[in-house]
């Protein structure tokens, strides 16, 4: 498996990003669900990963030599499920069941959903799992890579720092962490709650190859994510500077959209702004 084998008719990158944003807005509106801000901040990252980078086959989601994507910020599910549905892992109509009684589309990401590698939701779990997958992939020798998306707030978790220490020591160059650095965590700004700065320097000091980019610059995302493994013997971290609520003016950089679900009126405005 050398190239992405996603459906040939998948939309082009920017259209894909627009569509998954629109799905996510509709889903959280219908379900009166939370976490739309952190969904929108990572939309462009998912769009690039799933249309340009990951070697996956929706017809064979458990293919042994696939690339792995581990969503560690497991609360950002609407955009994740929308991405997988757009890629053909399951029917788009299924998105209408998000958070409904009996649906597999739970509010924190579930491995019952085709295309989801692991269930997360308690923060600080994804990276150690991704490290295990990267070790196993290296041992298998098939060249598959493991991408793990963290939130900034979740970098408070000690378990992540155990993993951050481990991966360079074991030269896991097939591992790529992406931090959705939208600067707002659950109960305040990252700078106020528990400052991560100097963030890139911390990763560098631990031995990672660090890329620091605008997380909405799809060309930059494509360049750094597509290059993994970027440096022989070093894991890569992409610190993606993003905007919480990106694409919807009244949600951008607003803590409240970690929790709120848009009214009918605000949904219409949001959809218009993302171009749906």
């Amino acid at each position, binding site marked *: 498996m050398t190239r992405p084998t996603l459906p040939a008719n998948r939309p082009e990158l920017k259209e894909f990003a627009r569509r998954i944003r629109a799905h996510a807005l509709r889903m959280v509106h219908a379900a009166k669900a939370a976490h739309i801000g952190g969904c929108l901040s990572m939309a462009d990252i998912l769009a690039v990963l799933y249309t340009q980078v990951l070697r996956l086959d929706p017809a064979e989601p458990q293919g042994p030599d696939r690339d792995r994507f581990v969503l560690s910020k497991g609360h950002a599910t609407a955009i994740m499920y929308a991405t997988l549905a757009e890629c053909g892992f399951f029917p788009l109509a299924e998105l209408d069941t998000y958070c409904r009684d009996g649906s597999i589309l739970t509010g924190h990401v579930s491995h019952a959903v085709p295309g989801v590698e692991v269930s997360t939701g308690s923060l600080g779990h994804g990276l*150690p799992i991704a490290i*295990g997958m990267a070790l196993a992939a290296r041992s298998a020798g098939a060249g598959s890579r493991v991408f793990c998306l963290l939130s900034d707030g979740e970098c408070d978790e000690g378990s992540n720092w155990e993993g951050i220490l481990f991966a360079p020591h074991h030269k896991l160059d097939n591992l790529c962490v992406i931090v959705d650095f939208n600067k707002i965590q659950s109960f305040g700004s990252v700078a106020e709650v528990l400052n991560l700065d100097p963030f890139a320097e911390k990763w560098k000091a631990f031995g990672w190859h660090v890329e620091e980019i605008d997380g909405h610059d799809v060309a930059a995302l494509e360049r750094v994510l597509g290059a993994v493994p970027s440096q022989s013997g070093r894991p890569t971290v992409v610190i993606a500077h993003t905007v919480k609520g990106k694409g919807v003016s009244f949600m951008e950089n607003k803590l409240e959209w970690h929790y709120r679900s848009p009214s009918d009126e605000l949904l219409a405005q949001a959809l218009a702004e993302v171009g749906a």
Partner: protein
Amino acid sequence: MRTTFIESLSQAASENPDIWLLCGDLGYSVLEPFAAKFPDRFINVGVAEQNMAGMAAGIALSGKTVFIYSIGNFPTLRCLEQLRNDVCYHGADVKVVAVGAGYAYGSQGYTHHALEDAGIMSMLPGIEVFVPCDPNEVRAATRLIASSGKPSYLRLSRQGEPALGSVVTDIRKPRILREGRDVVILASGPIASRALEAANALSVRGRDVGVVSVSCLKPLDEAAIRDAVRGASLVVTLEEHILRGGLFSMVAGAFAGDAQRPPVTGIGIPEQGGKTSSAGSREALLDAAGLSVEAIVARIEQSLAKR
């Protein structure tokens, strides 16, 4: 027990190239034979149990069978949520091996006493829990979990535990260590040796006492345990663990709905509460906790007197 474990695991690993072993920077003078024989499948992850447990899940979800090894509370309670979410919820083929059951690390103090681990592990969904009493059971349990394909917990003591019975035919079944029908002591772990001593002391007084090792706490073979205690006028459980959540809780819970059931006397370690722990050998700490052979005999006599 530790040596028997690593010998059994090495044997299994030589037959199955998908068996890996991770340790949390513990296992000096125990794990080296495995590390030397299978360097590509052994990782000392450092003193980082959360990462170890999550990583084990990730390796297992890639098709491997992963053992993680450390002392008592470290690969269990320290990373409990990783075991719950990453291992058990995904049905990942991860085996948690804890050395130092109960008071095995005697004088090392409270942090090294594993007194709640078996109960807490048993509460996790889909996990199988083994508390072997002697090297024969360690061998059988290790062989079983190496190929069971299920999350498992193996609770080991330390070293020098004697064989308490003959060969193990089925580690999932209760194993009779001493025949006897009137009183049956169900024991889990090496504390079973004290059950045998107590049974001998009671038999001198004319009591008919059997001893049965219950190594597999989960799934508990309730039917086989009912058979093992059939006709007994008293059942005693003995464990190097608090009563809550351990063997006593499981046996009492199994019998609770039976119309005809024997009384069950639970003997285990009292909860520590706010009291500080003293230094002492395993034997001394067991004695102090009310698990001396004499105290066990006395408890059984008291229970018999109430019949």
